[in-house]
């Protein structure tokens, strides 16, 4: 008896020890495209964090003699109209994209929790009022809304992060959180918590948050790409991050377009960097969603029979059976 209990405990501990490692193992095993995304994202993070050491020149270092030079060994990606090295600017641009994506997504998650979870949990008149406001907010085409709010706050990195974070959190994000909260809110443990007099705020932080954490993580990771693209669009239209700072979107606007016929590489690289990074981030986000959302896992129980999946399915069933067998053995020993 004691041995069994210990067995259960040890199995439990083994399973719980490192969910992060477990996540990465599954990512590598089951989601090859997610792995590609992960590699791209890690590259972005490294480029963003170590920009100073990686870039051959400063992002505003002007070398007049190399103005509009094409790609060469000295300047791998060429130079812009002021004689600034494009590779360095792209690397520093990675930092901007990284900051916008991470900070924006963090703000958006916080806002969506505060608005969505509280609204869904409290319900009643409060929920009603907040939801009408969210309705109204969601009716505006996002880009137009960003443009207006950005012209109120003025251009700048901080403003972009706040505007994108708050409005994305308020719009789509809060709805998702709210519906997740409503789904679990009738569970018995909430009643128990309320019965012993736990304050609402503590219930929200200690019971609601851990329960909807997977959904929050999915929201965080699938939203990242949107932030990078939105920042680039805003900077492209001249309402985002002001010029001397090398934002990928900003590099495509203004001078990038003015000189695009003489120096097409000026417009080529920033956009390519954007496309690759957003692709990677989206891929990783999708993989994270698939791994965290139990309803979307694997190809089981779907349209199995037709597409030659039968074999795969059988193999999977075999594997699961073997796993179950193993677990049973480890429990009984």
């Amino acid at each position, binding site marked *: 008896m004691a041995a069994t209990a210990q067995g259960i405990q040890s199995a439990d501990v083994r399973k719980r020890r490192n969910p992060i490692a477990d996540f990465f193992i599954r990512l590598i095993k089951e989601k090859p495209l997610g792995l590609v995304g992960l590699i791209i994202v890690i590259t972005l993070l490294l480029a963003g964090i170590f920009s100073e050491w990686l870039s051959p020149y400063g992002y505003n270092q002007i070398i007049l003699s190399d103005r509009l030079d094409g790609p060469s060994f000295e300047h791998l990606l060429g130079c812009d109209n002021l004689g600034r090295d494009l590779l360095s600017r792209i690397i520093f641009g990675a930092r901007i994209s990284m900051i916008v994506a991470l900070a924006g997504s963090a703000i958006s998650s916080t806002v969506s929790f505060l608005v969505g979870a509280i609204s869904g949990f409290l319900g009643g008149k409060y929920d009603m009022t907040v939801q009408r406001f969210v309705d109204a907010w969601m009716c*505006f085409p996002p880009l137009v809304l960003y443009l207006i709010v950005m*012209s109120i706050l003025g251009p700048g990195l901080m403003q972009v992060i706040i505007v994108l974070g708050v409005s994305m959190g308020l719009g789509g994000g809060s709805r998702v959180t709210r519906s997740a909260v409503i789904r679990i809110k009738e569970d018995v443990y909430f009643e128990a918590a309320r019965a012993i007099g736990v304050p609402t705020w503590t219930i929200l932080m200690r019971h609601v948050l851990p329960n909807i954490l997977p959904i929050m993580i999915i929201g965080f990771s699938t939203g990242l790409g949107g932030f990078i693209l939105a920042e680039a669009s805003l900077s492209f*239209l001249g309402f985002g991050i002001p010029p001397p700072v090398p934002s990928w979107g900003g590099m495509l606007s203004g001078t990038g377009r003015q000189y695009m016929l003489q120096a097409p590489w000026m417009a080529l690289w920033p956009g390519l960097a*954007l496309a690759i990074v957003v692709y990677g981030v989206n891929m990783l986000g999708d993989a994270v969603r698939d791994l965290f959302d139990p309803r979307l896992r694997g*190809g089981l129980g779907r349209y199995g029979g037709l597409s030659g999946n039968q074999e795969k399915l059988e193999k999977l069933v075999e594997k699961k059976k073997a796993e179950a067998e193993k677990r049973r053995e480890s429990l009984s020993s």
Partner: protein
Amino acid sequence: MIIPTLFLITILVFLLVRFVPGDVIDMMLAQMSEQSGMGAELTAEYLRQAMGLDQPILKQYAIWMGFMPNPLQEDKFMGVVQGFLGESLWKNKPVLTELLERLPISIELGLIAMITGWILAMPIGIYSALRQDTAWDYLGRSFAIVMLSVPGFWLATMVIVYPSIIWGWTPSLEYIPFLENPGGNLLQFLLPGFLMGTQMSGGLMRMVRTMVLEVMRQDYIRTAWSKGLSERTVIIRHALKNALMPVVTIAGMMLPSLIAGSVIMEQIFCLPGVGRLTFEALTQRDYPIISGINLVMATTVLLCNLLTDITYAWMDPRVQYR
């Protein structure tokens, strides 16, 4: 449900725009003193009064909404409720007239984009779902994610740059009215419309795929299979018919992203549509125009959502709204 939302929209639209800094009066005075000496006798106070900007903001809102008599329109009740969106501060033209002039351009662009998007998304999405987890499925899904990742403004820039370097061809960057030259007009809209469409197709394709997958898991499909129906019949008669109905209604929900796309494309391809009008109005601080456009856009989106809900309930009797 829809009335309070509409009301909130009008408040948001009106207030947000008034917070934009950089007074329109200063800009006007600067421009006027540049042209002739007109600025000398026109004071800021006078201008403010002439445009009704001297009133307290709540009163301005009431006038704009049509709850109070409008001193600029001979003290008649002229406001949103009566279908009057105010006058442009710069052009002395009713906002609605200006909007209606620009609207056809955006609609033409949007239509081309919609058609391209659906033509691309439908077959790829359906095929990808039917052959789930095969190489074709991966290819289709990768296509969708690539489309979602490539920034539209960059694609457009590349389309302008590279053909002109390689073949010396550039798309016309001057607007050709449809009535003057229908062919040239269509040709001009085709490129930005097509680009917007490919952008949209990524999201659409994923939606189509999810819907088809969902339907393929239903009991009645299993029944159809077990009856021994051919794959063709099962898919076309039973699956697609049920899967595509909700997808079609989603078209209404694509509207906001369509509008956002048109702001950028109109800017790049120099098409004088609603997106460009918004952009111009924002840089000129033309409050009534910005408010007017946003009100019209938001209301359209709201109505489209409502329409989507209604058609959805009408098509699928299982859905019931309280």
